[in-house]
């Protein structure tokens, strides 16, 4: 089966969908001729023409706003926000418009659209190229929020997102674009070409939104993770020898509560990981739900290992990033209870 990096997998998903469905249009800053600063749209303008893949002015509100209009018309816009850190000027159009259009018009108008945005840290990008704003989307009724951790999922989830009739926020953990970074920044990363999840079938396949994947079975503790943190969790489990069950959520809304609950019922312990700032991060919601649903099965407090409640610093990248050591400590801590 062909091996792809996550960038290639995303590009392939766009290619497949543009070929299948003339309603799919792709645009954003630098995405046209140049193919995007992360090269995710390379070649698409040449293949499908400038009116289906084009550069947008540097206006995130404009990009999302016109996507809403296009969706209402009947197209399937896929907009790229160059970094998730830059989505804020478009946040009103996401929250007040895309998310509520179906509801407020009782289904007369809808906003089937995908907003792709590279997110997360680990690239020395400083406070404006490292953010993980997923919780700002999960709080908003009407949005779906998806975040793949590998090329196979990236392609299948992106195709599902484009086919979805609701607006989908599609977060791309850029640190794993080229390989499954596990937080050991001093070690070379394995490229996706040598990782089983780099295998991505050609053509069309979709991974339904709302289904988590169990990346590693275990009996001692459930680890809830997504994006880059899935790989960090795997490293931490391996290095500590803790018999952790690692769940890659893949979709935050809708959330695969069944898989989570089944696992925590089994392990009685839960550690939640994310890169975003802790306070009001998505980990809080996961923690709240796990204790609501599994209270009588819990044998230790649910722990969160997250980014600190500071802006993402530049020089202190590895003090900020919740790497395998911090995760490992948490795994041990919940077992000691």
């Amino acid at each position, binding site marked *: 089966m062909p091996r792809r990096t996550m960038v290639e997998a995303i590009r392939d998903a766009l290619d497949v969908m543009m070929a299948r469905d003339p309603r799919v249009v792709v645009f954003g800053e630098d995405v046209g001729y140049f193919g995007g600063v992360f090269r995710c749209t390379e070649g698409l303008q040449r293949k499908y023409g400038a009116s289906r893949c084009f550069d947008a002015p540097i206006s995130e509100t404009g990009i999302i*706003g016109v996507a809403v209009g*296009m969706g209402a*018309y009947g197209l399937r816009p896929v907009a790229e926000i160059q970094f998730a850190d830059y989505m804020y000027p478009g946040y009103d159009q996401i929250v007040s418009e895309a998310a509520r259009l*179906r509801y407020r018009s009782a289904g007369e108008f809808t906003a089937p659209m995908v907003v792709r945005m590279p997110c997360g840290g680990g690239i020395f990008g400083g406070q404006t190229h490292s953010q993980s704003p997923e919780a700002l989307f999960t709080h908003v009724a*009407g949005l779906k929020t998806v975040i793949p951790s590998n090329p196979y999922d990236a392609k299948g989830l992106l195709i599902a997102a484009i086919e979805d009739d609701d607006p989908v926020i599609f977060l791309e953990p850029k640190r794993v674009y080229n390989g499954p970074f596990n937080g050991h920044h001093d070690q070379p990363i394995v490229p996706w070409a040598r990782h089983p999840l780099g295998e991505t079938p050609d053509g069309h396949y979709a991974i339904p939104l709302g289904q988590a994947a169990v990346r590693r079975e275990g009996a001692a503790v459930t680890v809830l993770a997504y994006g880059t943190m899935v790989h960090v969790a795997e490293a931490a489990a391996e290095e500590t020898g803790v018999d952790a069950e690692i769940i890659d959520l893949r979709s935050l809304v809708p959330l695969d*509560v069944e898989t989570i609950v089944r696992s925590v019922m089994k392990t009685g312990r839960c550690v939640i990981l994310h890169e975003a700032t802790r306070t009001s991060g998505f980990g809080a919601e996961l923690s709240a739900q796990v204790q609501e649903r599994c209270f009588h099965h819990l044998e230790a407090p649910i722990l969160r290992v997250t980014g600190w409640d500071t802006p993402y610093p530049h020089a202190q990248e590895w003090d900020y990033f919740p790497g395998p050591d911090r995760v490992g400590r948490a795994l041990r801590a919940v077992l000691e209870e």
Partner: protein
Amino acid sequence: MAERIPLSLHVPEPAVRPGGRPDFQYLSIPQAGAVRRPPVDVPAHEIHDLAYSIIRVLNREGEAVGPWDPGLDAEAVKAGLRAMLKTRAFDARMMMAQRQGKTSFYMPSTGEEAVACGFQTALEKGDMNFPTYRQQGLLIAQDWPLVDMMCQVFSNERDRLMGRQLPVLYSAKEAGFFSVSGNLTTQFVQAVGWAMASAISGDTRIAAAWVGEGSTAESDFHAALVFASVYRPPVILNVVNNQWAISAFQGIAGGESATFAARAHGYGIPSLRVDGNDFLAVHAASSWAAERARRNLGATLIEWVTYRAGAHSTSDDPSRYRPKEESDAWPLGDPIERLKNHLIALGAWSEERHTQLRAEIEDEVLAAAREAEGYGTLHDGPKPSSAAMFEGVYKEMPRHLREQRQELGV
């Protein structure tokens, strides 16, 4: 270094406040017929002057004059008159209904009826308006059922929006009327996106964006102009300058320094400034802009100069911030009166027929209100279901909403 004089902040103030004498000197009004009518393919920079004048057709005698006279026949004029009268009567009835506690909120378009009613005459089936809360005239001019609109205002069991939306935030896809948002100006750039989609699809339909002059200050106004300037999609960008944004006069949006029509110039977009209380001028300018759009010549911005004669909404009391007499002193007059006089000047109308038409329309509106009230009002009678609250957030209801619906027990 030279001695410096202390700086100070300029805070715009309207010419008068309550207690003062209405003063519209800031508005310089050309004679009807005085402004030239360029061909629709004129380059933007050749008509900059049109952003600083006012296109007018109806003169004081009620005659249609000058190059913008659309030459509408009496039947078309009558249809316009009827639409405006109906809009006014509808507004009056709904204002009253709110005062009677039948709904929570209402927003009239009194004094501005010619803008929406006249504009709609330039559109075709399939075109899409992206309106604000003050373009009910777009629906009424199409004879959209009043009962349907009223059921939305009353949030009753026949409200097609299932009680989810604030009154007046209609949605009527079939009528080319995009779901109105409570967030200002978001629709302006969405209209540009819709028009881009039409162009991408090789379609022939055009879009119309709407915004109030106060709301031009919002970000999405700029985004709309930038995208319209870059991709030249088939869209008409309407700015309704009714002089007021709640309590803020147009100077607080920058109207002291330049016209809103002039905003287009920096984007290379042609613009017109038009007497929004002159139904014929509205029809003519809208048609000009629609023709541009249909011929793939791109966007046109139109500033409609009008006056918000009523309160901003049922929550507002304009006498707190502007003279009560201001409305009567508005120099462009009342759009209904002016069109009526034109029709009389054409020899096709009389005061008697006018009175009769008004009465007919009032009856029609009253009957519609009675019918709509029969389907319930906000606090009384049949209601949209509680379960409807959980539906339509997504196409399919996800688990967490099913659980929450169960939690509520509906």
